């Protein structure tokens, strides 16, 4: 797949429901790819601390919820981007082995490894002659 260019395009969550916390909520940019063994999700979550991140797999819905602490450093003089929380959900069609999910947050990037359950892995079927 061709590489994507760098753009500034924070997508605000279009949600009919309101969040209890005031302020903008964004859909983080993600890459998702699949190998034979696992599904990998990588999300850009700048400004998110480990304790403010919540990843949840319920049935087949994976939800990422992240709170960004505003760190006011004086008065805003000029603004090109908004700071807000992140929220995004995905419906995972593969059968995931929930006990083996691994997540890592580093330098504003979240990586989630969702290993497929044994039953979901491709199996070569031998054809007898």
């Amino acid at each position, binding site marked *: *797949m061709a*590489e*994507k*260019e*760098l*753009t*500034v*395009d*924070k997508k*605000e969550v279009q949600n009919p429901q309101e969040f209890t916390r005031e302020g*903008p909520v964004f859909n983080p*940019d*993600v*890459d*998702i*790819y*699949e*190998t*034979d063994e696992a*599904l*990998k999700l*990588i999300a*850009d*979550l*700048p*400004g*998110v*601390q480990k304790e403010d991140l919540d990843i949840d797999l319920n049935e087949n819905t994976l939800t990422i919820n992240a709170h960004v602490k505003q760190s*006011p*450093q*004086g*008065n*805003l*003089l*000029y*603004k*090109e*981007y*908004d*700071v807000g929380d992140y929220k995004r959900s995905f419906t995972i069609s593969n059968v995931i082995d929930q006990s083996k999910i691994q997540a890592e947050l580093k*330098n*504003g*990037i979240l990586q989630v490894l969702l290993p497929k359950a044994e039953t979901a892995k491709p199996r070569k079927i031998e054809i007898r002659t």
Partner: protein
Amino acid sequence: MKQKIKYQQIGSCFLIGNQETRTSRQSGGDIMAYTAILQPTNRLYQYGLLQNEMNRLFDNFFGSQSRTRGSNVFPALNVYQDADNLFVTAELPGVDVNDLEINVEGDTLHIKGQRKLPETDKDVRYHRQERGSGQFSRTIHLPFPVNTEKVGAEMKLGILTITLPKADEAKPRKINIKTA
């Protein structure tokens, strides 16, 4: 080479067209941007209340992301100030500090860098690819002269913060009132 000139409202002043952004995209995919934050000429600029109100009006009218959304400028910058410093912040998740180059020359700040995405195995099937990568470069004119010797930069949680101490002449000065 495509050249786009865009006039935008800036946070420090409510006059439209006070900031000028030129972006040019070269065939190699480099993004170059030149942004000037001009010193506001209007005296009303000093009144933060009016400034905030105008920001709010503009945000409501254009949507809060209007100033950079869809443009080729990267990264988006926010500028904050307190009595002694100017802070420039940018969201750069996953950018290695070794791939960043920050220069200050007089009242001009240059940020140049590259965002590399780690290579994946060959036989992966992408479901989505939304995260961008490549080179970027931005130049902004600061609204005050700064002490270039003491400029500091920090990368934390994927957010770059550049701290630029104001030059002595730009610091607010308390004026003592003599009583007769």
